[in-house]
Each structure stands twice: as structure tokens, then as C-alpha cells.
């Protein structure tokens, strides 16, 4: 089973850290990624640029609307993801709990809807 771990956190939290703390934070993510790879669970991962860079598109009555900003305004923003391959939800929840993002935000765990 593949699961997408969606990392939501307050962006300001990272921006307000000292460079030293930021470095520590990055190191924690590097270690986590490495552990996922070692365990053979990593499928893919990426970090997203801040939500200020978001642009929203939708087509209404054939007309394309482009809006500056994210779809929903909330305190916590989607900041990155890990796509993992594990046997079941318990294993996925285990990896979600280890994710550094779970300690400074929330990690949403979603099963992938296989189309194959």
C-alpha cells in the first residue's frame, strides 16, 4: 500500500527560527528521509515553497480564473509531502509519528487510490 504523508505546519514557525535551529530542523528531515530509504519505504518526497507563492486556477463557465494565493486560508499550510510504500495503516502511522513535521505541525495520512 502507498500512503501520502501531507505535512501541514505554520510557515512562520520555520521563518522565526535562528539559523542554527533551522539547520537542526533540516538535519532532522534529512535523517528521516534516510531512514525511509533504508527501510525501503520511500517512494518520493518534496518540500514546497511558501504558500505566498501559490496561485489558484479554476475554470468557471468555460472561463479560466487565476487567483493569487492558496485555495484555503488557514493557520497551517501544506509544506511538503512524503510518498511511502508500507504494508498497512499501522506502519504508515508509525512513519507519520516519526516524521519531524508531526512535532511542529500535523501529518495527514492518506492512502493512495491505486489506478493500475
Amino acid at each position, binding site marked *: *500500500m502507498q500512503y501520502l504523508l501531507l505535512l501541514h505546519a505554520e510557515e512562520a514557525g520555520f521563518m522565526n527560527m535562528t539559523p542554527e535551529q533551522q539547520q537542526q530542523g533540516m538535519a532532522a528531515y534529512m535523517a528521516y528521509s534516510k531512514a525511509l530509504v533504508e527501510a525501503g519505504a520511500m517512494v518520493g518526497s518534496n518540500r514546497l515553497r511558501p504558500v505566498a507563492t501559490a496561485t489558484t486556477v479554476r475554470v468557471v463557465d468555460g472561463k479560466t480564473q487565476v487567483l493569487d494565493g492558496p485555495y484555503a486560508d488557514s493557520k497551517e499550510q501544506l509544506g511538503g509531502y512524503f510518498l511511502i510504500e508500507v*504494508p*498497512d*495503516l*499501522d506502519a504508515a*502511522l508509525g512513519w507519520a509519528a516519526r516524521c519531524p513535521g508531526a512535532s511542529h505541525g500535523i501529518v495527514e*495520512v492518506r*492512502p493512495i*487510490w*491505486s*489506478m*493500475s
Partner: protein
Amino acid sequence: MADAVARESYGKLVAFLAVRTRDVGAAEDALSEAFAAALTDWPAKGCPENPEGWLLTVARRKSIDVLRGKRRHEAASEEYEAAAAILAAAPVEAEIPDERLAMMFACAHPAIDAGIRAPLILQAVLGLDAARIASAFLMSPAAMGKRLVRAKVKIRETAIPFRVPERTELGARLDAILDAIYAAFSEGWTDPGGVDAARRDLTLEAIFLARLVAGLLPNEAEALGLLALLLHADARRGARRSADGEFVPLAEQDTALWDGQQIGEAEGLLRRACGLGSIGRFQLEAAVQSAHVERCRTGRENWVDVVELYDGLFALAGSPVVAINRALAIAEAFGAEAGLDAMPEAGGDVRLGEYQPYWATRAELLSRIGAHAEARKAYEIAIGLERDAAVRRFLEKRRSALPG
């Protein structure tokens, strides 16, 4: 015959299919088709030698047919084929393995909404239909049906595992199952007169489940504690109403009407649980029941012991409900004034303000210290909140007995 097999076998058969397909709903469907087939087949050809095995063979074939049918129509064909293959390869022996516990752990998984765990277990293990569960939990059958379906879909689509957790996390995960069984019992218990068959039966179903879990995990102290608690409470069922249907409080019950055998079993379980050296909420609650029984039978006051048990409970699970019972015990041991001081404040908690025992307890303690006007007000709120007519009449009697 199908009926006789049903109660013990139903959950085992559903579990056998669901563990291998992760699909509780499809397992239930396949099994109900198998039972329907039995109803036409057995009267004509005679009951098979191994009814359970017969049902499983039919249900398994139906499940595989459904899975292979889905494979043709839906995208996720690999998963369906894998499940069908596992099911087809599973050996059907004379003795069907009991995997009900693994299924209960899936139903009470932390990823499943806590409020639907008890209904889910009642349906998956015992085959109760949504309408009956809905009436016991005061919910519309349609809403209950929808929530049950949603939970089963979540189990399947998120691949919630069907297995007994490792030792390190067994305790916390087991608590969720025990809580669900206790919730089922409590819903049944709110009809102590036994007027509503759906609710009355639910207490028996809950005891069946508690017995099942205690039997499968005989070294888990809290599983034994829960069974002891339920047996203690149920043993007094016959004494809780007078011949003409009036509510009889514990202190005035005729102990001869209690089920002595059941109390004996509960006491034995509690002793075994204590020997395991891992105290918990249900053992403490069972110990409170045990102390009540002892006092009523012997006439020896033991309220100080009861207060101590409630202190332990309050430290473990400081719920307002525990606080209220603790306050009542304190009032018996040390006087109504002390009891009132120990009552929780309703101010910040809306649910407490709507909780009948909170107001009835306040009323009782206020009347004991002579605050009759306040007691009358509290009785009125309690009466307004109570849904059992016999308890309402009891509270009305207490209110009209107030002087002035």
C-alpha cells in the same frame, strides 16, 4: 439449526473472511447469503455434519465470486485478485480459527471514530443490524447505517490491519475495545426496566463480548476487570425494580433477588485480575461494585474503602461521572457537607449540566444539609433530564418529601 450456529459462529466466520480480504462489509454480505442458502438447503437435504464449515465454504465461494467480478469492472484489479487468491488458498479445516479478536482490534483502531467503534463491533462480531444498534444508541437507523458503512470503507481503503497488536502497544489498543464493549453495555443499561428489548439485549451482547475478550486474553487484567464489572452490575438487574415497576435504589434492594452465581463469578474474576498486578479503571470499578455487594449483604459499613477506590479511579480517569460517584461515597463516609464540597462544578461543563445524576446527587446532598429550596430546584432539573419514567417517579417522590 442456522439460528443455533449463528451466535457463536457468526463472528468467527465474518472474521475469517474479513481478515483475508480486509472487507468487513463484503464478508457480512457473503455470510448472510450463505445463511440464506442454508435456510433453503438444510431443510431439504438435512443439516450438514459440520454446519460451520458448510457456511464458510459457501460464503467463501460467494466472496471470491464478488472479488473476481469487481476485478473486471474496477480499476484496482490487482488488490481484488490478491484478496481472492488469499481467500481461495486459505485452508478450511474442521476447526475454524477464532480471529474475532483481530477483527475487534481493526474495529476499535485509533483511526476509527471512537463513537462508532462499539456499534461496529456489535455488527461485525454479533451480526446485529443497523436499525437495532441505532435504537440502542438513540440514533436514526439511516444515520447509523451510513456511519457503519463509512467505517468499514475506511478499514478497507486505508488498510487498517486485522491483528492483535504487539505487547508494547497491546494495553492502549485493548482499552479501546474494552471502552467500546462498556459503551454497548451502558446503552443497554439505560433501560433497567427491560421494557425495550433492543436495549436490554445489548447488555447481554456486551457481556458475551467481554467474556469473549477475557477468554482470548486471559492474562489481561483489565479484560477480566471489565467482565467482572458487567457481571456485578447485571447480577442486580432483577432487584432494581419493585414488583409494580418502581425504581429501587441500591441500599433498599432485596439481596435475595441478586444473582449469587453471577456475583461469585465476578468475584473470582476480580481476584484473578488483581493477581496479575496491573491495576486499571475497570478493575477499580468492579471493586466498587464488590464493596457495595459486601456492605448490603453483611450490613457492615465500608464507605471509607469505597472512597479510597474512587480516589484511585479519579486519579486514573478523572471524569465528572467518577467525581460525582466519589462525592456520594464521601457524603456517606464523612457527611453531606464534605460530599457537596467534593462535587464537580457544572459551570464550565455543558455536558455536566445535562447529566441527570449530577443534579440528583446535588439534590440529595442539599436536602441532607437542610438546604431544601436549593434541593427542590436541583430535583426539578434532574426530573426534567431523566428519560426513564420509573426513575422520574422516584425523584418526584423525593422532591415532594422535602419539608416546607
